């Protein structure tokens, strides 16, 4: 029976230094993300898994609200965790290896929606810094093609209809759980957020934007064991 497996990082653990430290990448990927994968498999491959056994990772998000009661929390937290982190690794790249700024239609769309790329960043920073407790900040596109910024608690994401109050296709996301930054930044979350912009892979974000315009979700590795 096919189970989800941990996707490999697209770069070395040290590749995002000095902005995101090697130890954090190690623990975040091999510790936290691996645990989400294990727990998700445990939930959906078990006796209560039902129709969730064969679902794509995207459809697990879309249907998380309808999971059987016995596995609902596990699916929401670990299905969300596996999706969010699988996407997250692809949104980053070593400084200089990808475009360091939004370009093309994405740039125009950000300017149209937020006034300027800087204003977009300001709003995104506010959403990321303002999420109390654990969660994520997102740039998404809704069904009507409009881009918006939001944050979600814990491992919720905007694909989770009936769970997330904001619904849309994620284009860019930032993990603001303390485990994402504490080793290097401690309580200084705004410093982490500012540093993270240095490693955003704008080529991938542009690709996510193009796909979202067709109402398609981002592409990333979803290996099976």
């Amino acid at each position: 029976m096919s189970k989800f497996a941990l996707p490999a990082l697209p770069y070395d653990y040290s590749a995002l230094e000095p902005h995101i430290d090697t130890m954090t990448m190690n623990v975040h990927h091999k510790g936290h993300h691996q645990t989400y994968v294990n727990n998700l498999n445990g939930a959906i491959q078990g006796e209560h898994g039902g129709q969730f056994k064969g679902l794509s990772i995207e459809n697990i998000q879309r249907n998380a609200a309808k999971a059987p009661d016995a596995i609902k929390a596990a699916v929401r937290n670990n299905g969300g965790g596996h999706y969010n982190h699988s996407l997250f690794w692809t949104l980053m790249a070593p400084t200089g290896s990808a475009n360091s700024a939004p370009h093309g239609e994405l740039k125009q769309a950000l300017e149209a929606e937020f006034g300027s790329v800087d204003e977009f960043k300001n709003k995104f920073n506010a959403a990321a810094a303002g999420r109390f407790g654990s969660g994520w900040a997102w740039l998404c596109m809704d069904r009507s093609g409009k881009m918006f910024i939001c944050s979600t608690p814990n491992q919720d994401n905007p694909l989770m209809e009936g769970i997330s109050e904001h619904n849309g296709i994620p284009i860019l996301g930032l993990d603001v759980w303390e485990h994402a930054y504490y080793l290097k930044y401690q309580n200084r979350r705004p410093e982490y957020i500012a540093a993270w912009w240095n490693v955003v892979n704008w080529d991938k974000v542009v690709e996510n934007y193009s796909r979202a315009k067709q109402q398609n979700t981002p592409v990333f590795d979803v290996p099976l064991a």
Partner: protein
Amino acid sequence: MRSQLLQLSKVFQTFTEKQFSSSVSKFQLPDLPYDYGELEPYISAEIMRLHHQKHHQTYVNNLNVALEKIHKAEEAGNVGDMIALQKMLKFNGGGHVNHSILWHNLAPVNKGGGTRPDGAFLKAVEKEFGSLDALISSLSATAIGVEGSGWGWLGLDPNTKKLKLEQCQNQDPLSTKNLIPLLGVDVWEHSYYLQYKNDRASYVKNVWNVVNWKDVANRYEKAVA
């Protein structure tokens, strides 16, 4: 002459504010009852320092800001704003309440940390859970199982006078569950990450070595009186 006028008007302004505005409470960071390093090796000095001087201090600062804003909104008759500020009050007021309890719930080993309780509190624990070890096991599981940021609590139901275990998200105080807080286990990642990384279970296991059961028993006795 102008600068003298400015100075005078500032003094007058302060004077009238003190005379005619009702005063807003200004909370302060309580001192730790022990040195930062005294809970080692179970909780590192670095964690204790950051937890107290940064995290708790920030809750205190933002609580005071929230109260000031609520006070101003009330003076302006703006009930809508007062309500909107409740989130900020809950986050930061809760953080202040919870951590003020926590510092006393813990003690160095040579000041009672880890020393098992006796008397009325132990009797109540044995009645409700079977044994102290059973309570420790259950509260550990409760705390470890918190999704995202939050606390595991031992509380007292003021109506039934029974001991109860609960989880709280973020900094929601136990009062939101209508229980009196006796012992809190903080499982926000900032409580353990620098020392235990993602191994929350190890941290919770180790914390029992520095739990100040005398403080917990005192709170119990006050609550049932």
